[in-house]
């Protein structure tokens, strides 16, 4: 991964998103600008209706802005067609959802392999990379379990492995601890912190949980479709594991 810390990964310029509900136009984002650099660990917070889900959908290339520009790694996403967006989602973005969104009746391994299938990666390499990703989240011994055979925390770890496996530029985590008890939630946040510090992976939490946000180094608050505050808090970040984390036994050397 590119080591330049100041590299601007995400550049959102005055993005507006308006939903049409029949005759009525509902503005969800009314001119949001923000930049995210490679290697950041940040939270986007805001009450419901503040536009944070809309912003996440746009950042994740699931949706496109009505106006304004969104550059991901220098590419103007607003100009891309459906297929190109699918490719970007596949190569550059990893999603982690509140409700895990794993395929049922499908093993952990197969779930993690899924993005690689659409990336056209061959069977053998796919398997190796998926196993490495599952080991990185501490599920090396559960690769053949189905989601119903895993706890919530384990399911979310499978989801993280799935997000990691394509070496994305950024992982977007939408309320990743929302469906978990506090112990599992902390474990999940700790995994993200470790991935961010050890692998330099850029992680964006979308959350309304202050405890989760406290574990990040920057908090962007949205209100009524606008950025209310953008607060760097390097010093206050709560680390759930001691720093610097030495190379643990069982952690693979590198995912890249």
């Amino acid at each position, binding site marked *: 991964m590119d080591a330049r810390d100041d590299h601007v990964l995400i550049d959102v310029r005055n993005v507006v998103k308006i939903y049409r509900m029949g005759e009525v136009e509902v503005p969800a984002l009314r001119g949001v600008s923000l930049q995210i650099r490679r290697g950041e660990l940040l939270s986007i917070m805001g009450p419901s209706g503040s536009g944070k889900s809309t912003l996440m959908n746009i950042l994740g290339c*699931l949706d496109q802005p009505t106006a304004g520009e969104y550059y991901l790694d220098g590419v103007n996403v607003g100009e891309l067609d459906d297929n190109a967006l699918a*490719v970007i*989602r*596949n190569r550059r973005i990893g999603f982690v959802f509140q409700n895990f969104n794993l*395929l049922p009746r499908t093993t952990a391994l197969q779930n993690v392999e899924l993005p690689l299938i659409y990336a056209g990666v061959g069977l053998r390499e796919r398997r190796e990379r998926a196993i490495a990703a599952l080991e990185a989240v501490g599920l090396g011994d559960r690769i053949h379990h189905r989601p119903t055979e895993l706890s919530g925390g384990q399911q979310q770890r499978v989801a993280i492995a*799935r997000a990691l496996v394509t070496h994305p530029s950024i992982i977007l985590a939408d309320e990743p601890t929302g469906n978990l008890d506090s112990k599992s939630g902390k474990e999940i946040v700790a995994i993200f912190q470790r991935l961010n510090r050890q692998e330099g992976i850029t992680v964006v939490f979308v959350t309304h949980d202050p405890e989760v946000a406290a574990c990040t180094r920057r908090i962007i608050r949205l209100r009524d479709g606008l950025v209310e505050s953008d607060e760097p808090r390097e010093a206050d970040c709560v680390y759930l594991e001691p720093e610097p984390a030495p190379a643990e036994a069982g952690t693979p050397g590198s995912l890249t």
Partner: protein
Amino acid sequence: MMYLLESLRIALRGLSANKLRSALTMLGIIIGVAAVITLLSVGQGVQTLVTSSLESIGTNLLFVFPGNIQSMGAGARFTTAAYLTLRDADAIRNEVANITAIAPSLQGTADVEYGKTTIRTTLIGTTPEYGPVRNYQPADGTFLTPEHQATGARVAVLGWRLASKLFPPDVYPIGQTIKINRIPFRVIGVLKEKGGGSFGSQDDVVMVPLSVAQQRLYPNRRSPAGEPLISVIDVQVDSQKHMDSVAAGITDVLRQLHRLKPEDDNDFTVISQADLISIFGQITGVLTIFLGAIAGISLLVGGIGIMNIMLVSVTERTREIGIRKAVGAKRRDILLQFLIEALVLSLIGGAFGIMLGIAGALVVDRLSADLTTVITPQAILLATGFSAAVGLFFGIYPASRAARLNPIEALRYE
């Protein structure tokens, strides 16, 4: 290629996740394909049977019927006014070249009686030449002779099946006296089995001298001038290449004899065995297509079943589609996945259907004595192609609906 293989894997996994539903959906296709194959093979069998039994009548035959067949094929119709008599047969015999034998006959139904058994069957009053012309040979006794014809002897020759139905096993038929329409006749011969008797009558006939049939059995079948009628003249031509010229010769002779003006239509019909085969071939061909079409409808219904299930499946798996799209599946990937599912359903169904269809054809073959069902490679190809087309056609709409889903809404779907 990679995509296809992966899509196939994904599709198979999707189908095996819901085995009962997949099996039931396939059942529609299975029944449809099996019906197509069985019915086509039965139709083909009927066609073969008709052709072979027409061929078994004899070789190089022309038939002269009274009246004009207005239209060939299914709507065959005779004008009633016209008739044929022995004079026509004599004229043909004397004036047309390249004829080996000619056998006029008068045909009707008659009650044949022996002891307490009475059987209603086809009676043919004819001349001795009818035997060689129609390939009838006596198994026991003799065929009709010129003397019988000349003297008007009340003698009868029986088809083997009629004889076996009429007489108890311990009675030797030759020399027995039977009653035909209550008139006593002496049995002089029993015919060899003719085989291929699709019309049932070839081995069930009773034959008597033409003169006896005309004078004693059907005295009322006469022309307005009082001449006894005949119903058909069988003409055997010496070789295949003279068929057309003999037919033309017969036409000339009869037109002259019937004093037809040049503008008049023929009041008789000369038809060859080949014509008959082609006419019946057309009829049975239509029958086969008809049977196939009926079976095709059930295949169509099976296809609608596939579409229905695929639509349900797409709705049910909306979230799955959303997940796939979120991790980078293109529209094409989703389309392919669901299309392949539909195709796999229809093709596996088709494969089972072919097996069931062949089994069905074999059962029909076993159950019917005369019919040999014919499974043609074309029928199998047709069924396979049709089931694939059904899968594709009825799969494309659900698949494209899946492919067009908005990923955000799909992910939110409960």
